């Protein structure tokens, strides 16, 4: 199924919006049915194309949030107020609408569910989206691979997939989810507040001796900082894969 993910020509397909789901006040998940979808690996993305009535069109890339599931696909879109595409996807698009896309794209920032190596996932903000696809794929495959997700977010209000992550981790000793609040924690929070620094990373991540596969996704500043810290702490740079979300994602 998903093996064929990057083979062959990537044709534009017209997906149909089956449902939308608000994740936070500024992030929405689009549930899409895509006839002929060839399958994907968690971590891959799609290109979305919007076209105005007069023919003007523009494209953006969005990470796939869902585990492979036939012809159904979920994208979670973070709205950028000055963006051109994300306000449309999060505020205008509604169930029944068509949405042109092609994919899956990207054969590097992917997790293969048969890989038993421990996994470290480090997410900054909406960078959690492709990592969530990995967590969901692991759940779908009942994979025993030990996974630690470190998810840096401003406040509890900006957390994507909070309940699902909590439930997934509660029933599974091999999945650990740690939230890092950079601006403020939830009521009663006694843990630290602030950016993911060296000591917290060392506490929460696998030790380098466990040789985890590391996936780091978020804004450039987050990715640069965390990837550098992981290298400093002895992780093999060849085992650290990164994906960056610039403010230009639109």
């Amino acid at each position, binding site marked *: 199924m998903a093996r064929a*993910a*990057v*083979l*062959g*020509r*990537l044709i*534009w397909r*017209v997906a149909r919006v089956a449902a939308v789901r608000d994740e936070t006040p500024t992030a929405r998940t689009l549930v899409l049915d895509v006839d002929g979808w060839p399958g994907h690996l968690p971590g891959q993305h799609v*290109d979305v*194309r*919007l*076209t*105005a*009535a007069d*023919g*003007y*069109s*523009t*494209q*953006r*890339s969005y990470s796939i949030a869902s585990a492979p599931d036939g012809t159904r696909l979920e994208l979670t879109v973070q709205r950028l107020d000055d963006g*051109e595409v994300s306000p*449309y996807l999060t505020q*205008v*698009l509604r169930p029944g*609408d*068509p*949405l*042109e896309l092609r994919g899956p*794209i*990207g*054969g*590097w*920032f992917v997790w293969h569910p048969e890989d038993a190596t421990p996994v470290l996932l480090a997410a900054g903000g909406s960078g959690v989206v492709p990592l969530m696809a990995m967590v969901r794929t692991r759940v779908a495959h009942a994979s025993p691979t030990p996974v630690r997700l470190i998810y840096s977010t401003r406040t509890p209000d900006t957390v994507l997939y909070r309940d699902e992550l909590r439930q997934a981790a509660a029933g599974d000793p091999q999945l650990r989810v740690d939230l890092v609040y950079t601006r403020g924690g939830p009521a009663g929070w006694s843990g630290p507040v602030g950016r993911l620094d060296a000591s917290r990373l060392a506490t929460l991540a696998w030790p380098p001796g466990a040789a985890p596969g590391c996936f780091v996704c978020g804004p*450039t500043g987050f*990715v*640069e900082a965390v*990837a*550098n810290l*992981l*290298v400093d702490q002895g992780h093999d*740079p*060849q085992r*650290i*894969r*990164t994906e*960056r979300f*610039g*403010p*230009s994602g*639109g």
Partner: protein
Amino acid sequence: MGTVSRGFGGRRRRHAPELPPGQYLVEDFPVLSAGPTPRVDLGDWEFTIATETGERHRWDWAAFRALPAESVTVDIHCVTKWSKLGTGWEGVSLDTLMDGVETSAGFALAESYGGYTTNLPLEDLLDGKAWVAFRFDGEDLAPEHGGPARLLVPHLYFWKSAKWVRGIRLLDSDEPGFWESLGYHDYGDPWREQRYWGD
């Protein structure tokens, strides 16, 4: 024309003939790379051109910087859809580096610190089309943007402009690089929108 998106007007449209199809303008300079930023000490840095016969031409940082450099202003186009117009660079032309290199190779594979590679026809590196750039916007090239030096091949999608470049291997036959092995187009002409395999 594609499927019309109900209720979509488009907010960033403006007359921009410099923009290849499917691209949009940015003012900042996004960073995209597949792994951690490699740390390259200038004392250890070197740039090597290896020909198809195994002949090697090598420059350390001082020798490289002693070569005549050019200032160029070019548009750059990333396969992830952003384009940035009128970017200012300083670098050594590949024509300068290739001067005196005997080769009949048709292809080149650029190799970077950190293990990244990208391939292109040798002719796309010659005749004023490519540089090894070490300054951007008047400043030393920042590590996250490929410093100390990166390839600059602005007429192709920007993944061909290998960051942290350490050398070029000249080859008789084409050999796909990192992204070219992972679904991205072998050549990558933005004006023909050659993003992925089969485009």
